[in-house]
């Protein structure tokens, strides 16, 4: 039995950005997994990754669901004040996709002699990149935050097809403005998480051409993030938080439950987006366009892996992998990092402790 008296803190604030892969947090709250572990968690909806990070750094909130590279960025002081942030648990894998504007996709179809097949390789963009270069213009792609898998995925997508990343203009746009930016042709495409890809298709402004599963599958996407000092002061609370979220991830493994999760999340209190834009990715369906059938993408949103139950463990390998992308795309200088740095941020030991604990 859980001894609530051992919990250092029971009223917890957890910050998040409303996205499809916020499911573990919302489900842990709505299905009573937090309560079962003696925790009264308030979910604090936020609209900017940097502000969410700053609130975590300042201790205004206790913990946050962050983009997987962000604890590394915080601990190195990239883009903000250096603050030791850790993750004791990976909340999700995959979930992102590249959606091009309908207008741009039609141009691609016209410029490419062969029929376009999905998932689309970025080489299909070459005729337009060349045509724009003559006019002194670039193809414009958007993502939501620099230290994000989205950003590294879109650059990887280009590089895998031998496109110089300098040939494309990558800009940051707030998720809630992405669809409007696409409709207004401010950008030609974006790489974001759900529900924004499916929403662009539903709104008939975009065509989803590739998912993160097609670019680099099964990498951490969102992680539970805490200040190292907070974990130190609240070791038992941390363990129960991880246990509750892990149970929510397991619960989300059932398809029936995923429908229920989509229904709950469409509530204005959470995502406030129609069910039709949230549900598809949760049931491995990638909406492509109004005119084409959806594509099956296994593990489009992955929260738990029955065949590898340590998917949620923030192991050194996952951390190192993200770290290598951060280095490759020049967010990190080579010479400033200590050898054991990743193991001080991606704390697999805390996850293992949580699984063992009562």
């Amino acid at each position: 039995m859980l001894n609530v008296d051992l919990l250092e803190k029971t009223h917890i604030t957890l910050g998040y950005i409303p996205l499809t892969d916020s499911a573990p947090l919302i489900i842990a709250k709505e299905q009573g997994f937090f309560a079962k572990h003696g925790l009264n968690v308030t979910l604090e909806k936020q609209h900017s990754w940097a502000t969410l990070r700053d609130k975590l750094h300042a201790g205004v909130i206790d913990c946050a669901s962050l983009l997987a590279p962000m604890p590394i960025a915080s601990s190195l002081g990239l883009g903000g004040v250096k603050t030791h942030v850790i993750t004791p648990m990976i909340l999700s894998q995959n979930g992102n996709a590249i959606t091009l504007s309908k207008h741009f996709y039609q141009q691609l179809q016209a410029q490419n002699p062969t029929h376009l097949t999905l998932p689309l390789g970025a080489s299909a963009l070459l005729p337009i990149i060349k045509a724009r270069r003559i006019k002194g213009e670039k193809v414009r792609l958007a993502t939501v935050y620099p230290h994000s898998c989205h950003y590294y995925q879109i650059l990887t997508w280009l590089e895998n097809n031998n496109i110089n990343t300098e040939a494309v203009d990558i800009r940051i746009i707030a998720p809630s403005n992405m669809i409007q930016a696409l409709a207004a042709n401010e950008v030609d495409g974006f790489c974001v998480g759900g529900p924004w890809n499916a929403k662009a298709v539903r709104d008939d402004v975009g065509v989803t051409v590739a998912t993160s599963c097609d670019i680099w599958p099964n990498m951490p996407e969102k992680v539970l993030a805490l200040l190292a000092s907070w974990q130190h002061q609240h070791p038992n609370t941390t363990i129960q938080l991880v246990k509750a979220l892990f149970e929510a991830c397991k619960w989300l493994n059932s398809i029936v439950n995923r429908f229920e999760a989509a229904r709950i999340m469409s509530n204005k209190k959470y995502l406030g987006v129609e069910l039709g834009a949230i549900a598809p990715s949760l049931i491995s369906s990638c909406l492509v366009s109004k005119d084409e059938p959806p594509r099956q993408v296994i593990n489009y949103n992955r929260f738990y892996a029955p065949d590898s139950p340590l998917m949620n463990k923030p192991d050194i390998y996952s951390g190192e992998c993200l770290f290598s992308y951060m280095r490759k795309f020049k967010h990190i200088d080579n010479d400033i990092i200590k050898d054991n740095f990743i193991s001080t941020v991606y704390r697999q030991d805390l996850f293992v402790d949580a699984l063992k604990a009562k």
Partner: protein
Amino acid sequence: MNLSMNMTTTDNAKFNVLLVENDPAKSNQLIKALGSNNYDIVHVNQEQLLQEQKAHGKKSLLEYVEQEAPDILILDIESPDRDVIDSLTLLDNTSLMPIVMFSDQTDTRVINSLIKAGVSAYICGSVDSRRIGSLLNIAMIRFNENQKQANRKISHPRLITDPKIIEQATQELIQLKGITAKEAYLVINKTAMSNNQSIEDVAKNIISLAKMLGNS
């Protein structure tokens, strides 16, 4: 110490401020607090911009920022555009201007902890107009110090001037010389440069000078 001032036109005496805020109630509150004597304020409503862009192909927020080239950008900390503006620094590795976060949170505990955590500069809606000038000066001075360090690629921990000292020195100058906040900023900056002193030393000198003159 030589506190020289060569302000010729009144336009130069004002900061150009770009205010990005979608909520009219919040932006009015802030414009009122800033006052028109010290600041030329251009207010951008991002929601409105997007609508115009959709209908007439007008400018995006980033194009707006580039074109206006403001001295300071003020942004609601709760705005989704926070990441857009932050990315100007992160993607290019250069900062165009100091960014000041605005919040209508009245909980000072929240604001104080954010300042302590190093969120560049931070103002809240209920701040009085006398203090706001000093806060924007702190933002300008810290921005310049950061830029200098970035240019020199200094890797040791940052030694940034205590904002309280800048704030106090700004207040003393405004009272002592009856000048605007921007003029006070220029005086501090110029004195530091011409005397080859740190901002902190100049600010401390101003404070002790003011005390000597019985200003406070």
